[in-house]
């Protein structure tokens, strides 16, 4: 059965979550683990095909003709896989599917609600990708940041997954930004503490925190985040800016990210 890694973002968006997810896929694949990836986009467009490139960037086209988020391009390039329409799910798709089921009478007169109906629909998409791809690990990136109104059904769905498929088969990773205050010349952890608190309020305790920053991250900051966010120290992974995005998998490897994922999910990895 497939195991799941759910990746959420905190503090701000555009922090490099897509590259981080793609890099994790790359390091897992290099250990002989089959991976597939899914991107959840909370907006209500069915796909980004009709959106202005100014709003959304490039529209990436998969082999089966799906018009998808540009992060799928990063997944394909970093992991060297070919994805399909199953790998990009939007609120627009979820809701239109729920509503057409309701019109067909599939819910037998029930009142349609976000919990359980919309959330169940989202979980169906996870299971469907797992079944069709037959991958060992499904990486799921939740678009936007924790606390967005549109993102809440997705967060609820990933929270329920831990109960559905078992504690040992699910890992939550939170990608945040440590802002730099130039007057005091220090990186601040408070926004990360807040976004982790927000995640916990929803019922998700992150297992790993990946910290993006413009400057190197000291050991004392790692200790502090470990203490305040209740995450093991080796699971606080610093990821400062790099010259080229293709360096990110190498940085994650030097921080032992690959071994950490293998250990936490109990994967059969090739050395």
């Amino acid at each position: 059965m497939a195991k799941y890694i759910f990746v959420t973002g905190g503090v701000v968006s555009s922090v490099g979550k897509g590259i981080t997810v793609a890099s994790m896929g790359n390091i897992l694949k290099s250990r002989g683990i089959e991976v597939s990836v899914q991107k959840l986009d909370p907006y209500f467009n069915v796909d980004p095909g009709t959106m202005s490139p100014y709003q959304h960037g490039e529209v990436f086209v998969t082999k089966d003709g799906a018009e998808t988020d540009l992060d799928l391009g990063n997944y394909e390039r970093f992991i060297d896989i070919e994805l399909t329409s199953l790998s990009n799910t939007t609120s627009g798709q979820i809701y239109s599917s729920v509503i057409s089921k309701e019109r067909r009478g599939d819910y037998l007169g029930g009142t349609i609600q976000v919990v359980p109906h919309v959330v169940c629909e989202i979980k169906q998409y996870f299971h469907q990708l797992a079944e069709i791809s037959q991958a060992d690990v499904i990486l799921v990136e939740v678009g936007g940041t924790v606390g967005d109104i549109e993102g809440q059904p997705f967060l609820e769905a990933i929270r329920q997954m831990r109960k559905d498929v078992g504690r040992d088969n699910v890992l939550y990773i939170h990608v945040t930004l440590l802002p730099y205050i130039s007057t005091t010349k220090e990186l601040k952890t408070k926004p990360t503490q807040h976004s982790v608190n927000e995640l916990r309020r929803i019922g998700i305790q992150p297992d790993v925190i990946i910290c993006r920053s413009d400057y190197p991250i000291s050991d004392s900051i790692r200790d502090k985040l470990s203490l305040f966010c209740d995450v093991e120290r080796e699971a606080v992974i610093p990821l400062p800016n790099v010259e080229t995005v293709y360096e990110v998998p190498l940085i994650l490897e030097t921080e032992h990210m690959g071994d950490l994922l293998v250990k936490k999910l109990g994967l059969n990895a090739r050395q």
Partner: protein
Amino acid sequence: MVKLLKDVVEPVNIVLVGKYVELEDAYYSVRESLCHAGLHNSCCVNISWVQSEDIERDGPDHHLCHAQGIIVPGGFGVRGIEGMVRAANYARENKIPYLGLCLGMQVMVIEFGRFVLNDPKANSAEFDPDTINPVIDLLLEQKGVSSKGGTMRRGNYPCKLLPSSLAAASYNADTVYERHRHRYEFNNKYRDCFEQAGMVYSGLSPDGELVEICEIKDHPWMVGTQFHPEFLSRPNRPHPLFCGFIARAKKVLREGAQPTLPLSQ
């Protein structure tokens, strides 16, 4: 690979002429594909992002004089089209390597119609629905489709390559599968007269009905593709067409560098 990426120094100046250049993410895969192809050719691709409307305003010389290669990526709508046509014209007349992707190929066809076949009315039915010479026309399957979402010709389709063409030399294959996303195509009514004037259809759909790749006979490297090759480039496996484009653009550096020597002495 990362070490290579940081170590390469030889620059190649590529100008990308598009309408969304203010946001580089709009051409994310194109940018990455150029980077992969540069790496493969041991050079560092410097991309200048030029708004095609600026070419309409200032003329092509000002923006393209340093270009060793010109790339016109995909897009929709009439804004900026004339600037792209002038960029294609500049590339053809000055023999600068040119790669047109989707809209970039259609622009190349319009330019050829206007300036080689001397037909100023040549246009795409997308930009002027009433044009009398629609060298680019709506796909037959698209006639009558009014819904905008998810209705284009999309995804993988095969393309048969013409032996001994630039495209076939780049791919070193006879049939390739490439990803598409378009509503318009080369109008087959104009195929014969374009061919006589020096356009080569180096890639066709297997039934021969749809022009997938075209190139210009008397030009070092001018290739337009109806599909989007940028989606298949990988860091360790750069796309053949991007590789061929950069390899040719690199040579423009050597040849182009000579006239800057003090020739008078």
